[in-house]
């Protein structure tokens, strides 16, 4: 899966999504959950971008804003050159054909009272594509494409296992031949062996239907396997954005390093060898994110500046962006070339580019 086209299919521009917390009889807004807080990035046609982070980091909210299941509080989403951030339901409808979503829980995302055929053909019916006969034929083809059999047309969701249900969800998402599919944790509810089947299927379908994926997951192994580029999110911000392999070999942001080192490796010797960075405590509340760098209270390299100055998202070359005052694995020469990325959130202090390279650290996975 490599980025083929040049023009971005979708551009996310300074996107913010705040959820108000209301109290009292007058339902006055007393606080806001900063679910997504000024995020910018672009996804090229044919590319897979992975969004990773712990629960509450805003990755699902971001995914939902991209397909406009949620309306952004500020900022914009540009799809094929067209701004869709503020479009109403009616103007959005034709665009819905181009972007679809696959959900996490295959038990909750299919209507138990509808037959599989109806579930998969509903998008076609709503968009008035073909007559009844043609739709049936298309659905049968889709079912085959996702590894089910056309005879499943008249069955109900409860007759299927979790993995099969997720295939139905994928068939439904593909019914309108979308360009973009946002997959929100599509494999995390499945057993390991079924997970692998599902990942292989999603990769095959990407070639067959020329899809662009935004792949949201908390499992770094899965994300690395499917993604071309990966964005690491923490408390509503993108902390690091990088080509997939580079992120795993040379993480710049300490949070990425810690995340990678926490992934259990099914190899006892390697597991003993490597250094585990156990992060203290939990993710702070997104209602009042910490001052300065949002990761500083849990960071093992944090110094005074980290709690005071919000670091900008800096460009380290090769499309590798990171927001950190003490960047890891960077030499002086690279640091001299570093510039503030256009994707950097507006609130950050753009004069605060890192001056000193942080530590040279061992590979967070293999420990070598």
């Amino acid at each position, binding site marked *: 899966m490599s980025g083929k086209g040049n023009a971005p299919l979708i551009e996310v521009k300074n996107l913010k999504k705040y959820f108000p917390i209301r109290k009292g009889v007058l339902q006055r807004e007393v606080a806001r959950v900063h679910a997504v807080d000024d995020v910018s990035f672009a996804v090229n046609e044919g590319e897979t971008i992975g969004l990773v982070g*712990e*629960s509450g980091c805003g990755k699902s909210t971001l995914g939902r804003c991209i397909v406009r299941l949620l309306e952004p509080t500020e900022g914009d989403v540009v799809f094929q050159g067209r701004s869709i951030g503020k479009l109403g339901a009616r103007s959005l409808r034709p665009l819905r054909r181009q972007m679809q979503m696959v959900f996490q829980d295959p038990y909750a995302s299919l209507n138990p009272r509808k037959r599989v055929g109806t579930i998969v053909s509903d998008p076609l019916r709503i968009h008035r594509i073909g007559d009844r006969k043609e739709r049936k034929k298309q659905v049968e083809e889709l079912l085959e494409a996702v590894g089910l059999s056309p005879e499943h047309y008249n069955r109900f969701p409860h007759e299927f*296992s979790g*993995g*099969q249900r997720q295939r139905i969800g994928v068939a439904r998402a593909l019914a309108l031949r979308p360009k973009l599919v946002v997959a929100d944790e599509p494999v995390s509810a499945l*057993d*390991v*062996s*079924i*997970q*692998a*089947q599902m*990942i*292989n299927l999603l*990769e095959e379908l990407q070639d067959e239907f020329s899809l662009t994926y935004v792949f949201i997951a*908390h*499992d*770094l*192994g*899965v994300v*690395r*396997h499917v993604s071309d580029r990966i964005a690491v999110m923490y408390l509503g911000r993108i902390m690091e954005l990088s080509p*997939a*392999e580079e992120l*795993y070999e040379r993480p710049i942001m300490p949070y990425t390093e*810690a*995340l*990678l080192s*926490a*992934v*259990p*490796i*099914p*190899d*006892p*010797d*390697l*597991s003993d060898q490597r250094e*585990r960075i*156990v*992060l203290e*405590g*939990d*993710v702070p509340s997104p209602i009042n994110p910490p001052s300065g760098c949002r990761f500083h209270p849990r960071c093992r390299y944090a110094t005074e500046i980290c709690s005071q100055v919000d670091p900008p998202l800096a460009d380290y070359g090769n499309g590798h962006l990171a927001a950190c005052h003490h960047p890891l694995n960077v030499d002086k020469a690279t640091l001299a070339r570093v510039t503030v990325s256009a994707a950097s959130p507006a609130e950050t202090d753009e004069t605060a580019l890192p001056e000193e390279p942080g530590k040279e650290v061992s590979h967070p*996975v*293999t420990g070598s």
Partner: protein
Amino acid sequence: MGERLLEVKDLKVGFTTEDGIVRAVDGVEFELDRGQVLGIVGESGSGKSVTAMTMLGLTRAHNTSFEGQVVYKGQDLLAMPERRLRDVRGNEIAMIFQDPMTSLNPVYRVGDQIVEAILTHEDVGKRTARQRTVELLRRVGIPNPSQRVDDYPHQFSGGMRQRAMIAMALSCNPDILIADEPTTALDVTIQAQIIELIDQLKDDFNSAVILITHDLGVVADVANEILVMYAGRVVERGPKRSIFYDPQHPYTWGLLGSIPRLDRPKGGRLASIRGMPPSLINLPHGCKFRPRCPHAFDRCIEEPDLRNRVEERRHLDRCWLSVDEKRDLREATIKGEEAAA
């Protein structure tokens, strides 16, 4: 290894349903010694949780049938009357469940729930029990325990709730701690904290741990012995290193191949196991893994027994292939080359 604590002998558990008998556990055998961490690995429906719950008498119901024995310090827990089992459960064998959100009662304070566990099993006063609770919360890493003891579960994060559950499980200093998918609902950074905690507390409290999980990565870290279950049976079992570096059962290979590995160069297709686990009401004849096994041959129509076939004497498996054949075929299967062919 320390003293023998537990011996499970030919355990079978069946649930009678309208559609037939669900053979959830079918002939499971293992032993557990003090100081040991036994990892039970398998997918949903493999019988790993039913095995654990049966040991504590949590599957007793009018439609359940049992066979075999669960011998704990010389007594058979399966035959033990409920009244006496209550003294063992929570006191000598404690359990932590998967979902820390639902295993604490939301309307009682966290501390009171732990105090209750102590008062149930031990003849101590309320004040002593409370002091011990604060101390336990401190040991499992809850910050500011003397205040947090009065919090309600909703005031705790997921990781803290799981820590509180561990504190409760350890409150009576149990010999055996059963952890059923203790980290599945948690983020990877919190998972690392909890696994480290369980491993360290096992030494502090001088107990044995049964760690049930679907994640081979988690057991690679802390287990000494591993049991791989499939369709209610043990298909492979042995010391950790032997299981990881000399796996003998094609199902174990499939599991190892299904995980996208961070420690290896990014590959192409993942080695998935074809098909789905069988229905436990209608199990296939012979080897239960036969319909999904890429190496099945004539002999697999007969079920292989679980026995030692390799040099490592404690390593047992349930597969008819010869050891040499397995060592030849293994790498390709784990890499998923069969899938492409």
